[in-house]
């Protein structure tokens, strides 16, 4: 069994993010297409395409998710967030037809998490988005399960290449179950091995400790 010196915090997946999850931090840097609803004085340096000092009202630009979430308010309209392409009607039809053919790593790689985050922004399409996310997950589940439980001792990069980050996590836990069982069956589990913590432990050098 893999032992690690720390326990990685799982991504929040739903509407709430996990503050300490590395995946969610990376996710919050995904860019969203937005449209400004009022002018932003003296922030023109953020908008690389024009040389003006201010960002005018009605400018279309891209902002990271964390900033869009902060600026978005229902009552005072500062920015309006547009849906990224993968969550729009056209792609939703594709996902509903056959979720297995889509390369979610290229589309995402945080397809599910970003989709859930999109629900923060009021949009009439929100229920459809949530439904599509769920259906996509269910539709792709069988393949993730079968590939993770059958690929023993082989190169899995081809299998995980089209998976979303969330599904990759699932794939890993499936593999840990399979590997654990296989090594038990072969009798490798009875051999004592050094803990990975000890193997990775390095002696601190005196120069590192002293200022």
């Amino acid at each position, binding site marked *: *069994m893999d032992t690690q010196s720390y326990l990685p*915090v799982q991504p*929040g*997946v*739903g*509407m*709430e993010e*996990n503050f*300490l999850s590395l995946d969610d931090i990376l996710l919050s840097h995904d860019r969203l297409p937005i449209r400004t609803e009022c002018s932003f004085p003296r922030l023109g340096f953020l908008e690389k395409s024009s040389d003006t000092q201010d960002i005018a009202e009605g400018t279309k630009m891209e902002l990271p998710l964390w900033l869009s979430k902060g600026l978005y308010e229902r009552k005072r309209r500062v920015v309006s967030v547009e849906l990224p392409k993968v969550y729009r009607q056209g792609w939703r039809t594709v996902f509903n037809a056959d979720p297995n053919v889509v390369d979610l790593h290229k589309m995402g790689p945080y397809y*599910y998490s970003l989709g*859930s985050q999109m*629900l923060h922004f009021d949009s009439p399409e*929100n*229920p459809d988005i*949530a*439904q599509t*996310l*769920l259906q996509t*997950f*269910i*539709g792709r*589940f*069988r393949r*993730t*399960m*079968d590939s*993770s*439980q059958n690929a023993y001792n082989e190169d899995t990069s081809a299998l995980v290449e089209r998976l979303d980050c*969330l599904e990759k*996590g*699932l794939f890993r*836990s*499936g593999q*840990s*179950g*399979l590997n*654990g*069982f296989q*090594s*038990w*069956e072969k*009798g490798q*589990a*009875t051999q004592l091995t050094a803990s990975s913590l000890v193997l990775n432990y390095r002696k601190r050098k005196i120069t590192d400790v002293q200022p």
Partner: protein
Amino acid sequence: MDPSEVEFLAEKETVKIIPNFSLDKIYLIGGDLGPFNPGLPVDVPVWLALNLKQRQKCRIVPPEWMDVEKLEDMRELERKEDTFTPVPSPYYMELTKLLLNHASDNIPKADEIRTLVKDIWDTRIAKLRLSADSFISQQEAHAKLDNLTLMEINTIRAFLLDSLNCMYKLRSNLQPGSSKGQFTDY
């Protein structure tokens, strides 16, 4: 859970041995064992049986179900039925491995038994995956795991629990506001 932990639990099962030494009753926290008399069968836990066997102090009598004909019937039944059939022992896989690895000379047709048990195991795992898939695709909330053994559950546990967690979160997206107020400690 690690498979070796499951194996450890399996070693508590009792098995019949025929000792070739004599010893009074021994008193252990888990219960009293013995007395041991040469040639008289006695029930002991698997861990003790294997230890005695390794020191060549006993002969292990294979459990009743560890028999080619019975296992063949079981395999046929397992393949015919859509649901899980009752297994002879909650630790059938672990016991087969332990006993066959350490005492194959006491078990007739050891190789055939090994293959049969592996066949049964494979059939059951395929069924388990099939039912996990239908469980997810129908978005069920609970399932009954009748006749499943610990080892079988253990191979799929991590994967299934993680997927169910994800599915639950994606589902709670459907009802806005329902995921509020959940706190996790780190």
